[in-house]
């Protein structure tokens, strides 16, 4: 089963959000904005901080292992301590 959690179209990915955040902060620190612009920047920046922070934490730790070579979605939990089931020497 797919674990896809599509981001809302309005929510940028982490990288885009962080880059925009950096731009916003830099513009605010230049000191050339009027109050309205500062408030708007601050609001947008605060939203982006929240977006990024959410993205850092929203995914839960999970390790799966494919069990069927042809089916990308058929998995079992993987402990990381699996015995060699094939004659493959440690790689």
């Amino acid at each position: 089963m797919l674990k896809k959690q599509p981001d809302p179209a309005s929510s940028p990915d982490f990288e885009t959000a962080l880059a925009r955040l950096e731009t916003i902060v830099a513009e605010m620190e230049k000191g050339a904005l009027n109050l309205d612009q500062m408030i708007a920047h601050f609001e947008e920046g605060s939203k982006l901080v929240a977006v990024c922070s959410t993205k850092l934490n929203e995914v839960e730790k999970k390790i799966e292992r494919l069990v069927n070579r042809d089916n990308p979605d058929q998995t079992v939990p993987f402990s990381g301590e699996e015995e060699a089931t094939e004659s493959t020497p440690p790689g």
Partner: protein
Amino acid sequence: MHAMSKTIYTVSELNRRLKETLEQVFGEVVVEGEVSNLRRPSSGHLYFTLKDSGGQVAVVLFRGNQRMGPLPADGMKIRVTGELSVYVERGQYQIVARKVEEAGKGSLQEAFEKLKARLQAEGLFDADRKKPLPLLPRHIGIVTSSSGAAIRDILNVLDRRFPNLHIVLAPVRVQGEGAAAEIAEAINTLNRREDLDVLIVGRGGGSLEDLWAFNEEVVARAVATSRLPVISAVGHEIDFTICDFVADLRAPTPSAAAELVVQPKARLEQELTEMNRRLAGALQHLAQRYQNRFIRAARSYVFREPGHLLDRHRRRIEGWSKDMRSALRNRHQAVLQQLDEMEVRIGFRMRDALARQTRRLEQAQAQLRVLDPASVLNRGYSITKRDDGRVVTTPDAVAPGTELTTLVAGGILQSSVTSTHRKESRHAQETT
């Protein structure tokens, strides 16, 4: 006997001459044959005979050269590359092997170079084909053996750097017959998942043969057509495979791949905290500037047009404050609190300034009232001038008969001096 006409060698001289001649004439040779009589003394060097249906030759493979290919075994058909030489002490000639390959197959190195050249010509290694890695991959696919050091190392490093990752392992054989096909298939299969951000493909160190699956074209093609960015992590630092060249990023080891794929979560969190701090800081800085402007404005204008200007500034500041407040409501407690304090401070300063200026106004008005001649006259005083306009402040300024003009609150009196007296009288002159 023709002893005198022949050169007489000692045995060792003969062997040395033979050695020199052989080495000069043949130098490096490549010989194919079947291994027999394999011996491995405690020195670790390998001694064996290479033979075919018509003859045999001694071969030595020193320990230091044994990593360069498969280890010979009795009955194995191999191709030996090495120097032809003579073992002087025994009078035996032998091949000092540098490299051993399986006979019949082309050399692995050759195959590697050929495939590399072909794929390079196709542009598969071009820098502009490389996909950028995501800054924050949260769903990571891994193609490697499910047992062994590589997967353990990768999982350990990933967990240490970013404790909440979603990982999907596609277990494959990483060496031997069919391994390459499995690796390629796993790459393709993981690409069909919609949730993954990036793939790590690799295995731990091993011999050239062990790593060979990652030099096969089927793997190279799978990596090249992968929709997801691929990090290749095969063997140790020194091992380069075709897979490394095609991949979007080459990691020297599996652990390094895990380090390259995701930044430490703590560092990203720190960066966000810092951004948040700078956001608030910039706004507070602006608020401070407005406050300073207000204070300057209050100082410089209020005395001239006190009520009007103060009101205007107060309205503006209240407006700013309200704007900020509504913009920040329930959003940023720290800044909001700062604003509260600022507003209180501004309020205090407003009241201070207002009170101060009002006091100054009142004092000024009081002074004016004291100084205004009209107000003096109102209280019953009068001002007396001579006809030349000079105000008379002493009896010496006049003499009996001098014409005087006296200002009182209600109007003007005309009179003339009849007599003058000094000192005792506060009003030295009398009027008639």
